């Protein structure tokens, strides 16, 4: 588990540690299990909707990517911080067995309503460097004092 991030130590432009994951079929089946979404689009290569929608292979659930970005944001906030808001759009498909890289950068920090607020741009990139899942997050961090 990462060390706690403190507000005083955060700088605008700071990058979050990357998370890389290449979900295989087993991972997507585990995600179906955990999330309750058993759409065969994500684990059955014979599913007729793939052809009907012009998709060449099984794709990751959008919410799987939300969760991956969520892991990075949650780790940044730490157990003493708290994620206040976090959202992404699924602009591009990510395919089974292909590497997804989660990235983030601090865009603003300010004190507001008694909290130490940090804003971030967060996203996933595919292995061609295309941003498939752009988003933002707002986190409250503890002070060192």
């Amino acid at each position, binding site marked *: 588990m990462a060390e706690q991030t403190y507000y005083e130590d955060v700088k605008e432009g700071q990058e979050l540690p990357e998370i890389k994951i290449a979900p295989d079929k087993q991972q997507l089946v585990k995600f179906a299990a955990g*999330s309750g*979404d058993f759409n065969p689009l994500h684990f059955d290569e014979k599913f007729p909707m793939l052809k009907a929608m012009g998709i060449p292979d099984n794709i990751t659930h959008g919410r799987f990517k*939300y*969760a*991956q970005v969520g*892991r990075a944001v949650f780790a940044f906030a730490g157990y003493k911080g708290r994620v206040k808001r976090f959202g992404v759009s699924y602009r591009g498909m990510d395919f089974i067995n292909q590497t997804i890289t989660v990235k983030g950068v601090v865009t603003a920090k300010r004190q507001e309503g008694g909290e130490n607020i940090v804003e971030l741009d967060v996203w996933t990139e595919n292995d061609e460097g295309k941003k498939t899942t752009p988003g933002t997050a707002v986190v409250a961090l503890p002070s060192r004092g």
Partner: protein
Amino acid sequence: MAEVFEITDEVKAQFGVETAPWVYEVTTTSVRMYARGIGSTDPIHYDVDFAKSQGFRSIVAPLGYVGTPAFSPETNDATFGFPRRQGGARLNLPMKGLLDGGTETEYFDYICAGDTLVETSHLADVKVKGNMVFVTNESVFKNQATGQVVAKQRLTSIHLG
């Protein structure tokens, strides 16, 4: 050329119409299964004693857990798991293709195993872009015991084909 879907006054009238509430029990097993499903190894999602040692009520649900459906065969969609809630909007879109457009959650508290959440939902937006219809629903999740809002979530789905 006619639009693939017309946002009529009838459709607009359904914006904001709340569904009947839906209850979700946040259990240790489901939190662990969700954390396993996303490939997280953070003990805060698995180990109750560890979570309590860090000041939490119990193991903490990962951020994407909010909205994981509580399934019952009589009332829920067999594939996606979501409840066919009473009330709320009925759009009757003709498209068969369905993709996830986006997920945005506002968190007012940590969600932990042992919490029971009550959710209501309403249609928030409908947009037509080319041959695709973007539908956004907004849900409010309250802790059943305290009545406090713990999360608000906006989900966008893309209907096409």
